[in-house]
């Protein structure tokens, strides 16, 4: 009876896995076959990947540049902000955290519309990649603040800071010498999330992009709509190759953090 139940559940889970993995495998295969309509017998090729690189390399570079710039901004804004939230009165801190979460809680489309309607008339700004960067920073900032704040709360940071102060350290010395080094774990976790999310962000970016500033997901949507299936697939393949390593590290880091929390 128990065996039967186990195999029933296993079978069900395997079906769900198939649903998740089959389209990914098909997409990868399509990106590597010479002619998807003919099938695998037409042979494997890297031709589509090369074509994607020729057509869309600049979107990949822009996405990397955006992700790194976004990371810098979220660290510079987010780590001090997490500290500020830690030090604020509970009610205030909750309200501000809630506010900073709004760009995540509300569809990216709405945030993008609001940005466009407010700042769209500033030509130079609207047409530069900084306009997209603003959207990405708004959207990823909570993902930096959250893990940093969690580490700060868990690390008895208040006591550590009091100890440093009792030994004569002023605020800057405490912040750089005690606070930041003790939430490196949170900063790293946040950084991985920020980079992954920024590289994959579409909902805000689609509205904010210009023909000269296309990011990777914008290019993907473009290729799905106007290119042959093999090119779209090859492009997706490149995207997966960029983000999957990040995801693996995030999962691994999460598991390590979990294990160290329950010794």
């Amino acid at each position: 009876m128990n065996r039967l139940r186990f195999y029933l559940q296993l079978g069900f889970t395997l079906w769900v896995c198939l649903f998740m993995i089959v389209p990914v495998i098909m997409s990868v295969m399509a990106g590597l076959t010479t002619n998807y309509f003919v099938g695998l017998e037409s042979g494997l090729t890297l031709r589509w990947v090369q074509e994607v690189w020729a057509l869309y390399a600049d979107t990949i570079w822009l996405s990397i540049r955006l992700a790194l710039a976004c990371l810098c901004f979220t660290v510079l804004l987010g780590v001090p902000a997490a500290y500020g939230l830690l030090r604020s009165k509970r009610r205030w801190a909750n309200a501000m955290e809630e506010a900073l979460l709004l760009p995540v809680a509300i569809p990216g489309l709405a945030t993008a519309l609001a940005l466009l309607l407010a700042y769209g008339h500033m030509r130079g700004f609207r047409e530069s990649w900084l306009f997209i960067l603003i959207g990405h920073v708004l959207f990823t900032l909570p993902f930096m603040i959250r893990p940093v704040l969690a580490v700060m709360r868990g690390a008895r940071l208040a006591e550590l800071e009091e100890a440093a102060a009792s030994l004569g350290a002023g605020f800057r010395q405490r912040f750089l010498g005690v606070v930041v080094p003790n939430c490196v774990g949170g900063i790293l976790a946040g950084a991985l999330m920020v980079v992954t999310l920024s590289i994959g962000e579409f909902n805000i970016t689609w509205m904010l992009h210009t023909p000269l500033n296309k990011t990777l997901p914008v290019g993907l949507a473009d290729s799905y709509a106007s290119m042959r299936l093999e090119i779209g697939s090859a492009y997706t393949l490149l995207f997966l190759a960029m983000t999957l390593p990040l995801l693996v590290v995030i999962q691994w880091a999460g598991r390590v953090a979990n294990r160290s929390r329950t010794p």
Partner: protein
Amino acid sequence: MLQQVNRRQRKLALFTLAPAMAVFGAFWLLPFTRLVAMGTELDRASGMSAYFAILTQRQYLVSLGTTLGISLAVSALAVLIAGVAGFFLARHSFPGKAVLVAILTFPLAFPGVVVGFLVIMLGGRQGALAQFSMWLLDERWMFAYSLSGLFVGYLYFSIPRVITTVMAACETLDRSLEEAARSLGAGSWRVTRDVIIPGIAPALLSTAAICFATSMGAFGTAFTLGTRMSIMPLTIYGEFTNYANFAMAAALSVVLGVITWLALSLARKLAGTSLGAPA
């Protein structure tokens, strides 16, 4: 003189929060306030205030209703499917389990456009289903460019969310409660019904709310599958780009924003941790 320490603390908190709040205020709060105000302006088609037009014009009500319906249905089905699979994975270990967990959770960070493309891979002209039906009946079955395609896409990005939440919830579940129930004579079905489901119910509800909010705002997936469907994100996009009906686009965005925000607030009240990653 009075309370220098507290005042110093408050000043530090303000000082460290200021940059983030300034960016948020200038680039989100201010623009969004304008968006809310813009929604009160006149809708170009009907000549009414745009918020009022949403409530009276059939096309917007249909769009809102369809989006709500499909999102609710997807959330419920995702919780059911991934709840069973997630609980199974949390409670058994067998060789190859890590691979299954990886397959089920990595799509978590696929952007909506990619999910849309994967649906095309399953149900498009050259999709898996079409190939299968061609082989079987010499007919081409397709579902990608319709509400069914959207449903499958939403299900695709919802399942990993539920799986991770359910597995985490099962691990924090107090095993001794189950042991106690069993010691009192409860069979495994009773244990599931009386101990496990109540134990992970907040997590299930919370993850359902996240799936709901994500589905409501999933622009990327819908955009890839076709721009003519009557779905809120596409309606907003159409009003803005095709008709330059800014008041209507603003009003619809605000309504959609309020709905997703409420759903995510509920989720956070129930579980208190997840941010609800986007699609």
